[in-house]
């Protein structure tokens, strides 16, 4: 019978496009049945496509080859018996079906493995306090900030520490879409009581990326009630969001207001030193020898988020391993050329000057002149500091490019902008926006 199925595929190969074959028919596994063949699809979606688009043709070909009608049974699973090869084939059922409580914290995410810097130390401190005193310190704890900055790491670290201090504690971690999926499943199977019990019986509920609740009204409603129940029961809630929750559109006002009941902490993009430290820590964890100058180079060139740093490190390690080369500065530069966008390599002093002039709507000629009015002087200082940050030029070279200024003037500009960025939110936003504009990250 399997031979029959193989011949059927060969026949279909001549009729269907290679893409359709690869996508829908080749992932099927076949097994004999009493008077026909059982086909196993890896997921329900593939099963539906095969049933709707190809089943009639498959039956016709099989009948032709066998000289009699052949019954075809389609199911989700694998031929060697596992009904479902991996957890759930339907979209995001979460762990909805498990009656036993199962911890799903990632043991690698701990406070020990978290690299602390100015951009995230507040978040780390808050997460630790919550872990030492769950349900009492800050409830909810909300960590917000851009993607790939360590919010999920801190969340798991808090969960792991809670469990370490009290092994019996039930800590449940979920991605927001798993919460949505579990709720939809509960509605579908009319099992809302079980859903409620499951989420309200935990000691700590951790939900990642709640911005994806936006616009999902039933989910928000259900989450609102879950939140209230947990809050009243002094059970800890830890959430992450990609921005300050009040700025998330299509999130119910009453939910937004509750999110602000505890503590909201911003996680900022890591600064240069922290990026270098993160890179070295990750390299050590992976057993990859990365010299400090390479770490500095990568931290300077990749400033968007920690995942991009990690991807660069993976790529560098894979290439070094394949070519049998040690990771040194030259090799890293070569690899980064492939890795980074053309954009990121093309940051020059004239680019910076033009971008800053456009951003502040001042004339380029004024930016390069000796005029000292504040409206020009501040953008000029910012442009100098950006030149130091984003290019490899020396202070005297930068001074020269800004109308022949002394290198001490450039140094002063860098220090001024640095200290302003610490104290002035507006300045820090301008700085980050310009970096994003210039590096395309």
């Amino acid at each position, binding site marked *: *019978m399997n031979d029959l199925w193989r011949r059927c595929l060969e026949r279909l190969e001549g009729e269907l496009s290679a893409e359709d074959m690869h996508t829908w028919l*080749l992932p099927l596994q076949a097994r004999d049945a009493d008077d026909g063949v059982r086909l196993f699809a890896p997921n329900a979606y593939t099963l539906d496509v095969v049933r709707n688009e190809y089943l009639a043709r498959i039956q016709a070909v099989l009948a032709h080859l066998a000289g009699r009608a052949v019954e075809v049974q389609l199911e989700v699973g694998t031929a060697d018996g596992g009904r479902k090869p991996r957890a759930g084939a339907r979209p995001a059922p979460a762990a909805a079906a498990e009656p036993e409580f199962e911890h799903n914290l990632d043991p690698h995410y701990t406070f020990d493995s978290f690299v602390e810097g100015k951009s995230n130390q507040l978040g780390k401190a808050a997460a630790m306090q919550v872990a030492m005193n769950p349900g009492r310190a800050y409830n909810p704890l909300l960590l917000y900030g851009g993607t790939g900055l360590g919010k999920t790491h801190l969340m798991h670290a808090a969960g792991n520490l809670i469990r370490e201090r009290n092994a019996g504690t039930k800590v449940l971690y979920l991605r927001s879409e798993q919460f949505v999926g579990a709720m939809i499943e509960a509605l579908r199977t009319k099992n809302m009581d079980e859903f409620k019990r499951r989420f309200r019986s935990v000691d700590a509920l951790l939900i990642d990326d709640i911005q*994806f609740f936006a616009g999902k009204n039933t989910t928000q409603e259900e989450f609102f009630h879950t939140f209230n129940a947990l809050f009243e029961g002094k059970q800890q809630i830890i959430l992450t969001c990609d921005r300050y929750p009040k700025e998330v559109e299509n999130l119910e006002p009453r939910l937004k207001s509750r999110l602000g009941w505890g503590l909201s902490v911003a996680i900022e993009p890591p600064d240069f030193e922290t990026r270098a430290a993160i890179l070295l820590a990750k390299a050590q964890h992976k057993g990859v020898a990365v010299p400090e100058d390479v770490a500095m180079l990568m931290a300077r060139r990749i400033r968007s988020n920690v*995942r991009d740093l990690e*991807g660069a490190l993976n790529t560098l390690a894979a290439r070094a391993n394949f070519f049998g080369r040690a990771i040194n500065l030259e090799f890293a530069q070569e690899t980064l050329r492939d890795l980074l966008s053309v954009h990121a390599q093309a940051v020059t002093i004239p680019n910076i000057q033009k971008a800053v002039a456009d951003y502040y709507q001042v004339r380029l000629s004024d930016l390069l002149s000796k005029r000292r009015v504040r409206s020009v002087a501040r953008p000029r200082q910012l442009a100098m500091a950006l030149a130091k940050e984003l290019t490899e030029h020396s202070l005297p070279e930068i001074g020269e490019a800004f109308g022949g200024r002394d290198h001490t003037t450039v140094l002063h500009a860098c220090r001024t902008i640095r200290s302003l960025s610490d104290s002035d939110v507006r300045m820090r936003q301008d700085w980050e926006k310009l970096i994003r504009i210039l590096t395309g990250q």
Partner: protein
Amino acid sequence: MDQLPLSLRWPRQQRFEHFAPGANAAALALLQRAAREDDAPWVVLAGPASSGKTHLLVAACQAASEAGRSAQYLPLAGLRGPREAAIRGVAGSALIALDDLQAIAGDRAAEHALFDLYNRCRAEGATLLFAADAPPAQLALTLPDLRSRLGACTLAPLKPLDDAERRAVLRARAAARGIELDDAVLDWLFARHARDLGALTALLDRLDSASLAAQRRITVPFLRELLAREG
């Protein structure tokens, strides 16, 4: 056990052993590993058309099947029907190869679906492989969460074979079919017909049967006539 050897079912042409690596040997090694090992790094192949992206992805699916892992290939550009549903639907295999990633850039629903698939496969220990015409940082993705996750994968840039390499590959493939291609024919094929090795290999198969049927040696006039007849 009466189960069909899985490897039989994947195409014979697009296997790892048929991949002419040229400058892409590192990418080949990464995919060979990802096809067999659960915990190998996820890879994003990035390169222009005809640099071997689809070949490597399909070969990875084939090698994974051979190693007893279930695999599925999903061409994001070529899907009929809603892409979001397909992306949400394909979970369940041990290895999933997603081709033409650039096709979903800007399609927020599809990007979100891929973001969910990414997280899910991470959690379930499945392997994801991607191919796109540019590195993730240069794709016009609208979901930063997806972009950063793709950024965390190992990037394997692919370069198309140069002319000499492509001639050598085509000559070898022709020889495997018992066809001898002389330089004049090769010149003509690359200049006039197609530069894409896949298309040229398909042509070889047609040449094979046509020249048998016509009992002719393969020459430029013969080629011209055959192609004219094919219209």
